[in-house]
């Protein structure tokens, strides 16, 4: 349940389907500190021409008066409600905890059984200690690939740092919503979304993707893989041919769907699936299930028939 939907203000209940806070209250939701985030805060009902007329140009004042009446009644009648008790106080011995503990024991046994052979293989793998450390470091940095568990651990630490010390999810798709708001505002001047929900800006996330550009360049450069090219290295050409225009068209079309899906779901692979999953959000796992439900049939369609 969104907190605003439990609010005593009926406006919030009626409009609680979207994250519209800044559209009416102003301020900067992308700021990390309280002071810049609260800059320019205003009380929307005091100025309906600004807060309400964007969506309800013909009857902004009538609507605002209705909400104002309720607000007066609410403030007159009752003192501010006491902060509600946390909905799920940490109880060490709830039923859920006991079931989880039982699951953990079962999983430990299953893990031991499945991991035994892997461990034996890993222990018996040969290791080369004759190469000097410097050369080994150079080879390590210039490798074209590391173990997905090593890179996954690295990304996990980055995600954790970003959440704990920057207070933000490590998200790639949000930056494009911000960047697209410039042409969007200009192309669709009457759009509710661009007038009230999404404002353009060079935000934290835009700098993040600038960093991604640099990191991928550095890593591929050291591996000798950074070069201009039109086509994927493997599997594309046998299936789709060597014409760059076909690749461009499918790359464009796929990217449109990817960003649209990220908008609907509230994040992409990094922002929702990984960062959200790391914050233990149930939505992240539903999103991942959706990804497979959409991706598996699509990949099958592209690769069915001869040559697939």
């Amino acid at each position, binding site marked *: *349940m969104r907190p605003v*939907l439990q609010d005593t203000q009926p406006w919030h209940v009626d409009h609680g389907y*979207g994250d519209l806070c800044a559209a009416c209250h102003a301020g900067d939701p992308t700021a990390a500190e309280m002071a810049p985030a609260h800059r320019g805060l205003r009380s929307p009902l005091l100025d309906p021409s600004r807060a309400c007329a964007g969506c309800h140009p013909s009857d902004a004042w009538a609507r605002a008066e209705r909400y104002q009446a309720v607000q007066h009644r609410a403030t007159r009648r009752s003192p501010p409600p006491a902060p509600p008790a946390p909905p799920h106080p940490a109880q060490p011995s709830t039923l859920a905890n006991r079931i*989880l503990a039982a699951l*953990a024991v079962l*999983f*430990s046994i299953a893990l031991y059984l499945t*991991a035994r052979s892997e461990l034996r293989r890993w222990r018996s793998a040969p290791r080369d200690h004759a190469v000097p450390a410097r050369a080994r470091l150079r080879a390590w940095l210039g490798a074209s*690939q590391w173990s*997905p*568990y*090593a890179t996954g*651990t690295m990304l*996990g*630490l980055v*995600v954790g740092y970003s*959440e704990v*010390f*920057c*207070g933000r*999810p*490590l998200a790639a*798709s949000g930056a494009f919503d911000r*960047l*697209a708001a410039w*042409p969007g505002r200009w192309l*669709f001047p009457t*759009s509710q979304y661009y007038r009230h929900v999404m404002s353009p800006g060079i935000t934290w*996330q835009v700098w993040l993707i600038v*960093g*991604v*550009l640099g*990191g*991928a*360049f550095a890593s*591929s450069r050291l591996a000798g893989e*950074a070069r201009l090219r039109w086509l*994927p290295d493997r*599997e594309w050409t046998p299936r789709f041919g060597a014409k760059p225009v076909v690749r*461009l068209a499918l790359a*464009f079309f796929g990217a449109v769907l*990817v*960003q*649209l899906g990220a*908008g609907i*779901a509230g994040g992409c692979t990094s922002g929702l*699936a990984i*960062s*959200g999953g*790391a914050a233990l959000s*149930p*939505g992240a796992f539903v*999103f991942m299930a*959706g990804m497979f*439900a*959409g*991706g*598996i049939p*699509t990949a099958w369609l*592209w690769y069915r028939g001869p040559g697939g």
Partner: protein
Amino acid sequence: MFEIAKPLVLGFLFGWSLHKAGLTHYARIVGVYRLRDLTVMRFMLTALVVGAAVIQLGLDAGFTASATVPSTALLANLVGGVVFGVGMATAGYCPGTIVAEAGEGRLDAWLGGLPGLLVGAMAFGLLQPVIMPTLSRVGALGHVTLAGLLGASPWLVLLVLSQAVALTLLLVARVGR
């Protein structure tokens, strides 16, 4: 200046890990949907579990009062995931890897992927007032966590989650090693 240093460094490490994980390859991304190459799954689930452990440690140590929990609206998360999966299996991209592929010098990412993301963002902008009021209302749980929803200890949820991830990864280890 110092404000942008953090996202730049975090982004650099993010991009580095995407390339070193081999996620800048069309074949790798589509491979996960063809159930031939599960590198993406190994990478993502490892990052998820490690990230979750760091966040829980950060919360317990008091470095932060709360993590940013994305809002759960079951129908929107599911529908968005399906659209996302269709696009990802078509282009072999997700938003982060498009940027990483652009950094590698791939022109299809610069001229196809990046403009596609901007057009997709605008398409969402136009559709948002039409579809989101309905989509985001069904199964709207808000900013909850699995631990909060179950009324369980987050560390126990994390333990069972990481065990489930480890088991899944070990059991699928034979697919496209």
